[in-house]
């Protein structure tokens, strides 16, 4: 029997669906047991749970104040950095005016070290040409760093700057003072330091003067020329594997850089000058807050504003460097003034009351659907319940893996999702009823009704998904969080209706209670073979079950015009 085949198939789908739910639950449980920070309780966003408030003040040197433009730009960049860590809906704003101006960053929960670092990384990004570099022997030898000035660099002084320098690469920048500072510099001030720490926090360098500094690890020290490009000249940066000339992918990680129009022109000039020089003067250093993060050699004159940095990068290194280049371009540098806990802006009682009210609303939905769909309400309520469980688990997984946090707007999205999810069942049930009105038996009506309904469900959910994806890509902050919730619930709606609601209805259609059209089954529809409305355009009076499967596509597409006319003339008497 084909019916049994259908039932078996539906049971298989249901099994897959429940395996998916248990799989997600087991994933969280397993990760928890393995010590990962997974939890069955989703994390909440700033408005519902509170978090950490960090106040950043600009460090600009004496008597200078940040302009509102600089602050706004900094807010935008910090927001990008925070958004890049996940969908956490941070709140970033400015406080005070002129000399007292500050940026207030509020992030939900207790942020991990990496996130804090990302926000605090005041990160003034600059490009400077390398004038000279040596290994920092002072600390490489180890031991007592106070004795380091005696450990002179092995290279001889490169120049005695007396003439006025003509270009940023000119060695005349290295005056006796600069050379002295360079010789005396020891990158790590303490023997215990693992990174360079010779600079004062918030130290401001003059962009028009040469700079004596080290890389982050304190392994090499440098004399760098004046600033040639600023971080704001970079329009994008990304990491990826390189391709060979034949187009095959090499297992070699690189960072791609794109410059803005003005930045591209400046970079062209820089590479034109650096390319003919010899090492180390053919190198340019990228500094963040004065520390060198990379100092690649120039091996081509780059005129199109797109550069590639290669080296022995691991995937993680390449990604980290790309992120630093992309998000590291604050117009001014900042210092952390304070870091404190902050409570939720929505009182706990308010949220609880809101949820209680929402619960009452759900109860009303259940009562309404029993009133409307009788026995079928089991399917509606069951589907909504499994949709809720699935959504809850997915949110729990995402808040662990992606840093997703549920905010008030997220909750609102979920509440409206009840409507959209329920609509899929309603469209489906109404289609099945339509088919019953055509005089089909229930099992056939379920099949035909499904094939018609699924098309509507897919296209309408497709529009919702399009909204979600577009908004997620193009927006920031709260709107992005909303888009994420919308997309999530739309996909879950499709899963539930295809893998739960439909198979369940297929199975129920084979039970006596439903197939007999019991008055409480919700399928007690008057299937009068006699009536034909003026909108009726189907030929079949009573369709055999085998045929009904075929007619599941556009019925009249398969009819010839003559057939259609015959059918219509047969019923036209009843019209009007």
């Amino acid at each position, binding site marked *: 029997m084909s019916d049994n085949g259908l039932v078996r198939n539906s049971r298989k789908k249901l099994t897959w669906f429940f395996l998916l739910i248990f799989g997600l639950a087991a994933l969280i449980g397993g990760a928890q047991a393995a010590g990962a920070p997974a939890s069955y309780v989703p994390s909440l966003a700033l408005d519902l749970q509170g978090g950490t408030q960090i106040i950043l003040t600009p460090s600009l040197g004496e008597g200078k104040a940040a302009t509102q433009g600089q602050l706004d730009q900094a*807010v935008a960049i910090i927001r990008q950095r925070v958004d890049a860590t996940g969908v956490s809906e941070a*709140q970033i*704003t400015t*406080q*005070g005016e002129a000399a007292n101006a500050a940026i*207030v960053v509020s992030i939900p929960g207790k942020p991990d070290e990496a996130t804090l670092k990302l926000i605090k990384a005041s990160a003034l990004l600059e490009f400077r040409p390398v004038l000279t570099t040596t290994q920092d022997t002072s600390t490489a030898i180890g031991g007592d760093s106070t004795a380091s000035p005696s450990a002179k660099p092995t290279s001889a002084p490169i120049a005695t700057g007396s003439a006025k320098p003509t270009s940023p690469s000119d060695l005349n920048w290295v005056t006796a003072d600069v050379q002295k500072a360079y010789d005396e510099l020891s990158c790590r001030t303490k023997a215990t330091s693992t990174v360079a720490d010779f600079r004062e926090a918030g130290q401001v360098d003059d962009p028009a003067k040469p700079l004596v500094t080290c890389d982050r690890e304190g392994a090499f020290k440098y004399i760098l020329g004046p600033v040639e490009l600023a971080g704001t000249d970079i329009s994008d940066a990304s990491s990826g594997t390189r391709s060979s000339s034949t187009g095959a992918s090499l297992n070699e990680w690189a960072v791609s850089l794109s410059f803005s129009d003005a930045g591209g022109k400046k970079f062209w000039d820089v590479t034109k000058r650096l390319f003919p020089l010899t090492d180390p003067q053919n190198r340019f250093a990228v500094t963040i807050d004065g520390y060198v993060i990379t100092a690649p050699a120039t091996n081509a004159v780059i005129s199109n504003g797109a550069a590639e940095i290669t080296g022995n990068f691991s995937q993680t290194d390449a990604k980290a460097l790309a992120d630093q280049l992309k998000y590291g371009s604050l117009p001014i540098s900042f210092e952390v003034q304070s870091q*404190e806990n*902050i409570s*939720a802006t*929505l009182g706990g009682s*308010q949220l609880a*009351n*809101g949820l209680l*009210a*929402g619960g*009452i*609303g759900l109860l009303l*939905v259940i009562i309404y*659907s029993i009133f*409307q769909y009788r026995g079928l309400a089991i399917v509606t309520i069951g589907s909504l319940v499994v949709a809720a469980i699935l959504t809850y688990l997915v949110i729990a997984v995402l808040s662990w893996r992606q840093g997703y946090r549920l905010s*008030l*707007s997220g909750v*609102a999205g979920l509440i*409206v999702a009840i*409507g*959209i999810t*329920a*609509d899929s069942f*309603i*469209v489906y049930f*109404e289609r099945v*009823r*339509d088919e019953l009105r055509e005089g089909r038996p229930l099992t056939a009506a379920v099949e035909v009704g499904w094939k018609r309904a699924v*098309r*509507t469900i897919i*296209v*309408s*959910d497709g529009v*919702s998904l399009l*909204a979600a994806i577009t*908004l997620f890509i193009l*927006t*920031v*902050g*709260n*709107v992005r969080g*909303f888009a994420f919730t919308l997309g999530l619930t739309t996909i879950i709606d499709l899963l539930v209706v295809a893998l739960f609601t439909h198979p369940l209805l297929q199975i129920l259609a084979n039970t006596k209670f439903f197939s007999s059209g019991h008055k409480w089954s919700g399928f*007690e529809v008057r299937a009068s073979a006699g*009536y034909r*409305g*003026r909108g009726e*355009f189907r030929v079949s009076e009573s369709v055999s079950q085998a045929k009904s499967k075929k007619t599941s596509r556009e019925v009249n*597409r398969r009819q010839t*015009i003559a057939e*259609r*006319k015959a059918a*219509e003339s047969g*019923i*036209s008497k009843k*019209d009007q």
Partner: protein
Amino acid sequence: MSRFSELGNALYSGEKSVDFIGRRKIWYAIAALVVALSVILPVARGGFQLGIEFRGGSEFRVAAVAEMGDQLARDTVHAVLPSVEPIISTVGENDLRIQTTKLEDVQAEQIRTSLAKAYGVESNSVSSSFIGPSWGQEITGKAITGLLWFIGLAAVLMALYFRTIKMSAAAVLALIHDLVVTAGIYGALGFEVTPAAVIGFLTILGYSLYDTVVVFDKIRENTFEVEFSETATFAERVNLAINQTLVRSINTSVVAVLPVAAILFIGSVFLGAGTLKDISLALFIGILVGTYSTIFIAAPFYSHLREGEPLYKDSAAKVLAKR
């Protein structure tokens, strides 16, 4: 058998039918009136009241507070300025942060001293400063760009699926109607526009378009090759589609609106979940308007756009001549 499903039968067969298409001039007039009111009323009230998140505001900080509840602070602010709804949170160990809309210096000073008195602390342990908008131009700008892209892409998607650009045009018109009317009612009631309300509007956008697509899919099916029909005109088939999906439209909007209405009426009126009222109001209006506009604007307008096409005009003339 419930009377509602009886109605479903009658609507499906065409036995009972509401003439949505024929009375479209009435619906257009109503829509024009409502849209006009939605623009005039908020303007007459002095424009939208934007929240602190959009405009920035004043911030007070009370240091070393003994009692951490937010009710005292709320009452204190209300005593000075009854119309201001403060946002209150605790910062650090026992500091209280109170944010309000931007206040005059005199008012700010008044609030500062009353807060100090209410919490029994020295007046210099209450600080006052200005804060910038947390929902800045940048977020708004990007949200609008995103919105325009979405509407454009959705129009293309619908045009491809339905194979006619006229459906996209009708759906987008209904969408604009929904946004204007929802925003209009919101502004006319004088509710403060918060980020939550904006998210509510976006949700409505998705819902409204979704609802229109469901009904349009039935219209597409019913009007398929209607030009060969000798019994029904294009407009009649569109009307039948609206009637056949009417039970669905009612059921769906009731199911969608029940939880929202519960939060709006029970939640904010009886339980005092005041901060949820902005988003639930936007959703409540939007769901009802979204369902309404599909039936009374999108579908009649689509029929309006197409029934004049020579193909449909000719076949309609033949059908009517036969009657």
